[in-house]
């Protein structure tokens, strides 16, 4: 057990801390695509604290990949509550895909503006009829001369209303087996024939959209990878998304906010932290959150040390992390009793309404990113070597 990252990394940590001290008044930039956001992004890239490993020629910092340094940056920014760089699916998903599988022209055209917040993306994967069974998607693209003609619809498309571009999966080879008939296309959201309808979720926010395509024409070369390879292109980075849904350190930070809440909220004049029933639930959740934190260290270690493997520790993080977080938020609501119901303009709202919001939002994450039932299939089949269910002949 060697938990230090070593002196080289500790001096890197000091550098990050110096940067944070120097910029301690930095406010979280509001709204996607705001000038403040773009300017902060530029500062972070120049310092090497975001887009760290993206080559300089594409607008990144151009450092060698180093998981430990990335982790130190994340840890220090989180501790100091310093706003990080721009996120979104263009930056987190499309750029890594293009770097791996894009043509030189595509890298040239898309990476830099995406990174600098000039080009905002949405992801068009799921469809009304293709959720857990994503590979059964039916939105079609037919080649007509130099253009793909797209018809169909997508759902759960976050930021579609703000995005300039979409990366999406479409069926181009209807006669091929379902996994081999999909292609990965890039298209402008202002192309004629695209209709966006906001999809209000249970938090009463339109976090998602439905997107409809009617004879949408897209240049032939806006494909990543070859025809029929779209499933492989998308899967090159899907695992990455799953891991990021339930950060155990964020759960522990949230747990501290819950402790603060229980120290200030009262029931019959008694602080909730002094109520043994709620305290017992709090301690139970703390124990689970701690287990997830060490599980995360184990996963990191297995990535850093070639001789170490922890496949199960990785596979269970989305399932356990999202359930844990949902229960953590639920305890805050329960502890507040009827006050915990407060919503919208209610003057008794606590934490800006974040407890109810996150409680529901994490239910969304239990379902999204591969439902937790799909996660259990993955754990049992890939992790434990249990056989797949027999296929039902059509």
């Amino acid at each position: 057990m060697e938990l230090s990252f070593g002196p080289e990394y500790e001096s890197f940590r000091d550098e990050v801390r110096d940067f944070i001290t120097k910029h301690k008044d930095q406010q979280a930039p509001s709204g996607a695509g705001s000038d403040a956001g773009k300017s902060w992004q530029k500062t972070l890239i120049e310092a090497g604290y975001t887009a760290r490993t993206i080559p300089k020629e594409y607008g990144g910092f151009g450092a060698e990949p180093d998981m430990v340094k990335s982790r130190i940056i994340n840890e220090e920014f989180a501790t100091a509550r310093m706003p990080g760089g721009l996120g979104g699916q263009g930056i987190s998903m499309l750029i890594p895909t293009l770097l791996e599988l894009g043509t030189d022209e595509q890298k040239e055209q898309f990476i830099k503006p995406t990174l600098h917040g000039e080009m905002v993306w949405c992801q068009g994967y799921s469809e009304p009829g293709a959720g857990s069974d994503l590979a059964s998607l039916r939105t079609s693209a037919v080649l007509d001369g130099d253009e793909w003609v797209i018809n169909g619809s997508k759902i759960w498309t976050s930021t579609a209303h703000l995005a300039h571009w979409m990366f999406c999966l479409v069926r181009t080879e209807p006669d091929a087996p379902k996994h081999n008939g999909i292609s990965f296309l890039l298209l402008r959201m202002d192309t004629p024939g695209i209709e966006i309808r906001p999809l209000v979720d249970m938090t009463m926010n339109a976090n998602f959209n439905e997107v409809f395509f009617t004879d949408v024409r897209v240049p032939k070369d806006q494909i990543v990878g070859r025809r029929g390879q779209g499933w492989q292109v998308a899967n090159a980075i899907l695992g990455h998304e799953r891991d990021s849904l339930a950060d155990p350190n964020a759960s522990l930070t949230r747990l501290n906010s819950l402790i603060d809440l229980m120290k200030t909220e009262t029931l019959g004049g008694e602080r909730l932290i002094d109520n043994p029933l709620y305290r017992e639930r709090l301690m139970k959740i703390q124990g689970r959150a701690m287990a997830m934190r060490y599980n995360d260290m184990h996963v990191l270690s297995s990535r850093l040390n070639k001789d170490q493997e922890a496949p199960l520790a990785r596979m269970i993080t989305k399932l356990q992390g999202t359930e844990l977080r949902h229960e953590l938020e639920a305890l805050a609501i329960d502890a507040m009793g009827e006050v915990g119901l407060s919503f919208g303009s209610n003057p008794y709202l606590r934490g800006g309404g974040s407890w109810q919001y996150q409680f529901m939002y994490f239910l969304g994450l239990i379902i999204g990113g591969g439902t937790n039932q799909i996660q259990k299939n993955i754990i049992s089949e890939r992790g434990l070597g249990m056989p797949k269910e027999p296929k039902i002949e059509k």
Partner: protein
Amino acid sequence: MRFGLSEEQTLLADSVTRFLADNVPLDEVRKVASGESSDAAVWQGLTELGVPGLLIPEDHGGVGLGSLDAVVVADCLGANVTPSPFLSSAVIAPTVLVAAGQREDLLGSLAGGEIRIGTAFGEAIGARVDADVKVSGGKLSGKSLFALDTHADHFLVATKGKHVYLVNASDCEVTDLPTVDRTRTTCEIKYNNVAAELISDNPDVFTEALDRARVVMAADTLGAAQHMIDEAVAYAKVREQFNRPIATFQAVKHMCAQMTADLEPCRSMVWYAGHALDNVPEEARLLACHTKAHLAEVGRSVSKTATEVHGGMGFTDLLGLHYWFKRCGFNRQMLGVPELVREEAARIQGLAA
């Protein structure tokens, strides 16, 4: 950075596991559990591997290893439901004697497997029924309940004030108290003005031993629960119903996946708790409490679910799966049930009075 076991620790686990597989199969466990033989032969074998002296410093005749090494061994013992006085003689007793710097002359005999020291800690954690230990003029009176190791030569007895005394078993009236888990023995000890030697009046000594014992028990549960998952998965792959292995049914797969998802983080937690005991003193107490309580919860649900996956066979004595079920149960109840230990976790953080 490396979070995990060292090469030496992996080798230690391999050698203990190999010994147990060769010498203490389930048939042997059954014999000890039914009273047909004692755990003395098993303990003798483990002594040859150095297990009783694991935590005893080398200049006292031990191996001089640390808490994480004890965690590694406990994991193996739990996985094999090994009958032995490991918890009392190899973990609690050496920790108390070394921390107190008292009766270190006993350490050599402990390490050599020549004596066994049992422990009666119930009083200091929370007395049950009519347990009551009184000290007056260097003599003990009253009784302890569910003390560890009926076959011990001496007992370390903790009082309500967390003072620890040493008594000779032969001076006391020791009666075996059968529990569901016959792989570790517990007893009632009656003290009738028995000569007692004060080992420590410093509560920290008691607490240090208790923390270590709790982490080691959690590691024992980790091993036992992992074994049950392995058995359940293997059984589901071969057991056929409706013309297919039951492992193809999602209902069964999801039970196995949930057990894995619950237990896998426990491995890292137990490792870190073992590491913290020796290296991160400011975190060790909280970790020990949470690890004991969390593994108790996961141990209970895994041992239930793994039994269910086996269907009716899981419920029988034929398969013997119940030895692991009961092992998890014992580790849950002894030295503080989860509710009690979690309240202690809250107190450590200043969240409870």
